[in-house]
């Protein structure tokens, strides 16, 4: 046993703001609950049966009171709702320059893939002071990526990408939990978030060996899965050139326009029929069942790199 901890460590830019809201809520709670309990005890003592107290002029007209406390509660509630919502929305607005790390949850471990191709299990190394954006997928059931020190959590629902971003601001080792029940070893599905100074982090990345970058691995797969047969130069089928697609708007056959984000790329590979790019025949086969989450991440990273390649100039 290690004493009586009451406050979780803070390691993220977001934690401070969260704690402020929490403290505000605690104050509201202590004040109202305290007020209610005080009145309960005070009235109980003063107006106990057998105790002589002035009981004349009981309040008969109640509606003024009712309107009073109803509006007061409502105002406080609206204030809290707005505060909480504002903070929440910002949690879903990652800055554009965030480092992107792919995370895959499966029974019962977390696997991470860094852009440089480094992989780790049940640990996640990140640099301090740099926005990190996790693109997460699950291989089986729902898991939830949770780092209390950062005050962030996101369920990872199988069949789709979820994302989460944070900026760690204090080096250290922090608990990483799976917060959504996922079977036998749910309690053991976790490990550590390791926040490092930039220099150390760079060193750590290097120490992981010199494998090709994620995008480069993706490029390999792009050939081995036969994507390049259609999408590459001199393909037999008329298929869109993927250069510069990522991040921009895509016009679809049915008239909609969607943004080519990682969700779109993922769906294009697994469910090509659901969003057909305008001007092309829906001949791309589905790769569902053939491409695992790990390889999918690589392919997405590759398509992303193609997108950045063109935009990098602008």
């Amino acid at each position, binding site marked *: *046993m*290690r004493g009586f*901890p*009451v*406050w*979780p460590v803070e390691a993220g830019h977001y934690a401070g703001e*969260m704690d402020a*809201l*929490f403290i505000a*809520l605690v104050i509201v*709670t202590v004040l*109202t*609950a305290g007020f*209610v*309990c005080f*009145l*309960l005890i005070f*009235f*109980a003592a003063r*107006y*106990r*049966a057998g105790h002589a107290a*002035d*009981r004349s002029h009981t*309040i008969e007209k*109640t509606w003024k009171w*009712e309107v009073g*406390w*109803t509006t007061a509660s409502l105002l406080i*509630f609206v204030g*809290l*709702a707005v*505060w*909480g*919502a504002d903070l*929440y*929305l910002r949690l*879903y607005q990652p800055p554009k320059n965030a480092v992107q790390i792919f995370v895959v949850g499966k*029974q019962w471990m977390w696997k991470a893939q860094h852009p440089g191709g480094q992989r780790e299990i049940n640990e996640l190394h990140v640099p301090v002071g740099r926005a990190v954006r996790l693109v997460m997928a699950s291989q*089986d*059931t729902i898991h939830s990526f*949770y780092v209390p*020190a950062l*005050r*962030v*959590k*996101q*369920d990872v*629902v*199988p*069949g*789709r990408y979820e994302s989460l971003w944070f900026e760690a601001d204090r080096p250290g080792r922090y608990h990483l939990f799976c*917060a959504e*029940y996922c*079977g*036998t*070893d*749910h*309690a*053991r599905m976790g490990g550590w978030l390791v926040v490092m100074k930039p220099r150390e982090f760079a060193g750590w990345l290097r120490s992981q060996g010199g494998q090709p970058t994620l995008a480069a691995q993706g490029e390999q797969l792009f050939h081995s899965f036969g994507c390049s047969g259609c999408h590459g130069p001199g393909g037999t089928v008329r298929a869109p050139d993927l250069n510069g697609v990522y991040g921009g708007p895509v016009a679809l056959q049915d008239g909609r326009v969607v943004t080519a984000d990682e969700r779109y790329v993922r769906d294009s590979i697994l469910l090509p029929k659901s969003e057909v790019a305008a001007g092309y025949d829906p001949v791309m086969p589905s790769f569902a069942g053939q491409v695992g989450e790990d390889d999918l991440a690589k392919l997405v990273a590759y398509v992303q790199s193609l997108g950045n390649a063109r935009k990098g100039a602008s």
Partner: protein
Amino acid sequence: MHGPRPNYLTAETTIRSWLFSTDHKRIALLYFASITFFFLIGGLAAVMIRLELVTPAADLVRPDTYNRLFTMHGVIMVWFFLVPSIPTTLGNFVLPLMLGARDLAFPRLNLASWYFYIAGGALTVLALLLGGVDTGWTFYEPYASAFSNGYVTLAVLGIFLSGFSSILTGLNFIVTTHKLRAPGLTWYRLPLFCWSLYSTSVILVLATPVLAMTLLMLVAERVLGIGIFDPALGGDPLLWQHMFWFYSHPAVYIMVLPAIGIVSELIPAFARKKIFGYKFVAWASVAIAAIGFLVWGHHMFVAGQSLYASLIFSFLSYLVAVPSAIKVFNWVATLHKGWIRFDAPMLYAFGFVGLFTIGGLTGLFLAALAIDVHVTDTYFVIAHFHYIMVGGSVSAFFGGLHYWWPKITGRLYPEGWARAAAILMFFGFNLTFFPQFILGWLGMPRRYDAYPPEFQIWHVLSSAGASTLAVAYAMPLFYFFWSLVWGQRAPANPWGVTGLEWLTSSPPPPRNFDTTPVVIRGPYDYVDGQPRPQAENV
């Protein structure tokens, strides 16, 4: 009166006359025995959970066993204890009495409802005996259909059957309240317990069918292997969450509204004063029941639902808290200038107000989107709902049980013991669950059989509290039994309070009233602390 008049307990004595009775009072007792049984099973599971959590390592039971423990704990406590608890026992018993009616509108449906409940309970216990279920009470998909190797189908069918019991009870209460009120008993003369039971019934009737269908879809998916919710087969796991919580959020109000109703009876009764703001308290119940249907998405803030939906659900969650606030303030104001007595039921009522307020206010933490991101699926949530469901509803249940015990059994319970139990329960409860708020805020996830050592101290305190709680819950078991044999005989109106149920003898005759009462004034009419009976004597 001369000679022991036959009452509902003595009128017939065969076992048959109990098992096939359509008398709402006897059915209430059948239910009472059954829910006590389930409470003990659920409680036993809780004890095992708390024992395992004394140490950080998973050393008492295997992980799979732990998962089965909290699942059975949740399933049994929710569907086989707390949802039916107050409505089917105390509600069943006193609602017709409060209305001045001879029975519920459909006595045979009432009996059928108990059989549905028992059949459902039997299936669920069977699933438990065969080896249990490890999905959590929420049966989240795709785990429940594609990964769990427990007896999910059996347990789910048990819950499905017990759902019919809920629906029939709700239907019966609604019709009875509309159509069987005694002459002169207008809506605004109804005791507040009737209002809250009515609101509860509305939820029972409108929410339960959705659960029933959702559970059937789960069974179909699990048995036939078709992807309704499993994304590997084209389904959507979030659809399960939507449909589950469409029922289960309103269901939490099924679990608290009847308790709120009991407290609204107890406070004026023991303050010997008219309730403050009767109409507001009455309509607040209806408002909670209605708005309660609009907030289910607050269980899905980090589940991947659309942000817009989250914003709407967060806002509506705050809205549903307003009627609860109205209730709390009116209860407190009722005490002002009363003639307050501290019999055991009133102690429970006090406990309820305090603990419900804390539980409710921590609900506001959860409804504040950003905070929920951090504390969802942690012990903060566990503490939140145990404060309301155990600290609140179970306390109120005990309060109501003590209050109506003389009416139900015709015997008085030993007051000193009862007060001691109430106080012990209050302290045991806080010791059990307050540390869990801290644990949750520290980041301790729920459904963990092992945890990092720095959390241990709070878990140890919590487990210590749970043992206290076990003792406190065992006490009534003993002294209630004692009172059945040795307790003093109760007069018709032992508390000296208003309300039609106190006009008939204790225990009541088989058909409640010898002549139908004619109601002449509203409930809780005390002048200078003296009751004025609600009806012309019977």
